């Protein structure tokens, strides 16, 4: 498992009531426990070790403090562009889009095409869930790391 995937998993778990999760694949078995009691809860998760940003802009601070905890349904997974190119929502100009808002996807579902140097690169979902947002328009250039979709995981 990549560190990024682990962090994402921890992020997702953070605001749930799940206290124990075991994940087993051919390569590894991972068990995560979250005690709601005193001692285990204090165990730092990786992102907790990141020092706070120095001197955040004063205008942002109250806003951040007032931001309500997102409800579980609002926690969406970003799908980002892995390459630079042109975003296409459909396999051809006349065809219907690969996905629409509200549709269910699973790992391997093609979400879009990014054309780079005349090569069509299919971008697949890595999460099961429902497409909640599509942030780019058909034919729009996208850069590395740009958020294309937001998916509400199951």
């Amino acid at each position, binding site marked *: 498992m990549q560190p990024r995937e682990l962090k994402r998993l921890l992020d997702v778990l953070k605001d749930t009531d799940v206290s124990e999760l075991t994940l087993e694949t051919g390569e590894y078995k991972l068990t995560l426990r979250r005690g709601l009691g005193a001692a285990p809860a204090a165990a730092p998760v990786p992102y907790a070790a990141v020092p706070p940003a120095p001197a955040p802009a004063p205008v942002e601070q109250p806003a951040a403090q007032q931001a309500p905890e997102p409800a579980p349904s609002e926690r969406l997974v970003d799908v980002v562009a892995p390459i630079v*190119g042109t975003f296409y929502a459909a396999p051809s100009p006349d065809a219907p889009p690969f996905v629409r808002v509200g549709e269910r996807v699973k790992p391997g579902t093609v979400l879009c095409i990014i054309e*780079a140097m005349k090569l069509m690169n299919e971008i697949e979902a890595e999460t099961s869930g429902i497409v909640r947002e599509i942030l780019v328009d058909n034919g729009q*250039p996208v850069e590395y790391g740009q958020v294309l979709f937001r998916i509400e995981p199951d």
Partner: protein
Amino acid sequence: MFRKILIANRGEIALRIVRAARELGVQSVVVYSQADENSLPVLLADEAVCIGPPPAASSYLNVRNILAAALVTGAEAIHPGYGFLAENAEFAAKCEEHNLVFIGPRPDNIASIGDKSAARALAQEAGVPVTPGSGPLASLQEAKAFAEEIGFPLILKASAGGGGRGMRVVQSHADLERQFVNAQEEARAAFGNPELYMEKYLEEPKHIEVQVFGDGRGEVVQLFERDCSVQRRYQKLLEEGPSLLDDGLRQRIADAAVRLASHIRYRGAGTCEFLVDKEGNFYFSEMNTRIQVEHPVTEMITGTDLVQEQIKVAAGEPLSWRQEDLSVRGHAIEVRINAEDPEHDFRPTAGTVTDVHWPGGPGVRVDSHVYAGYRIPPHYDSLLAKIITWAPTREEAIRRMERSLRETVIEGVKTTIPFHLRVLDNAFFRRGQVYTNFVARRMSS
């Protein structure tokens, strides 16, 4: 002229190119890695496209994403700056395949002159002297015959070698027999191949380089020379121009550079590097097919803009100057301010530049991408700034540089400024007695 160009680089040189483009009325697109999101070139360019994560191999060397960025933004040409893809013939060819102009030499120029033995052969064809050297030496007898021919000192090198191993400086015939056998054994042990060759060894040479500019059709001008002898482990630290060589020798070296560049019908900015010994012999060592870090020295003494000229020539315009239009006025010095600790073997010092103040006043130029609050990414080189001073004479340019460095404030990281102040104060430097071993010999504390 182009409407829009893409800049495939970062740091001070990306900023330099953004500035040149803006003054020409050309829009700029800067590509950047995630580590450079808040960098000055990204903030000042007309457009910016993220091309990858921080490691250069995934971003600034990511040919596919860079070309895709040029195509989706409608850029017509790509300026590679220096380093990264600047001397990559394959990248230059790929640009052409996609109808993008590579702002630099033709791919065949980059490939041929970038290969050490091919460059040596081209120089000889053009009548440019190269360091006398032997082919593989089959025996000690052959080595002795060669030594007879070109004289001492000589350096023995392993054909399979590198990194200094198997290299022996030989001062005399008496020395040769013993050194030859030792070097053979060292080469055999280190590389599994005892084969040796010999070259003339230059003691205390000066590193002199000539700035050339070609139109790609055989027209070449030279913009005089820079002396880059102040270097440490082949890394240049301070450059100046013109050199202190006598005018006859300066002209002969410049003529040789023009002969080589004309011979290959060179296009764009290039630099021919030479080693010059104390007897006034000079030998071609290599040609750099790009704009150089130290190009401002030449700009300051010739009143030219080499980066703008690169863009114009790439757009098909003729050279802005004939040779007779060009002359040297005054003297310029450039120091490279690196985020390195000169007290601890020049080790890089990462961190955030908490405060910065640049020098000003007459004859001072600062090329830097650094601002207060700038976090130096650990993924790239440590160059923070180049400070260039110009004055009518070398002595005045040195004093102006001393005053400029004392005005400069860079807080939060260690820099090479204290080292440069020591160089400027060194008596040998003041007298111009500077050879490539200057830092090792005169500056070791």
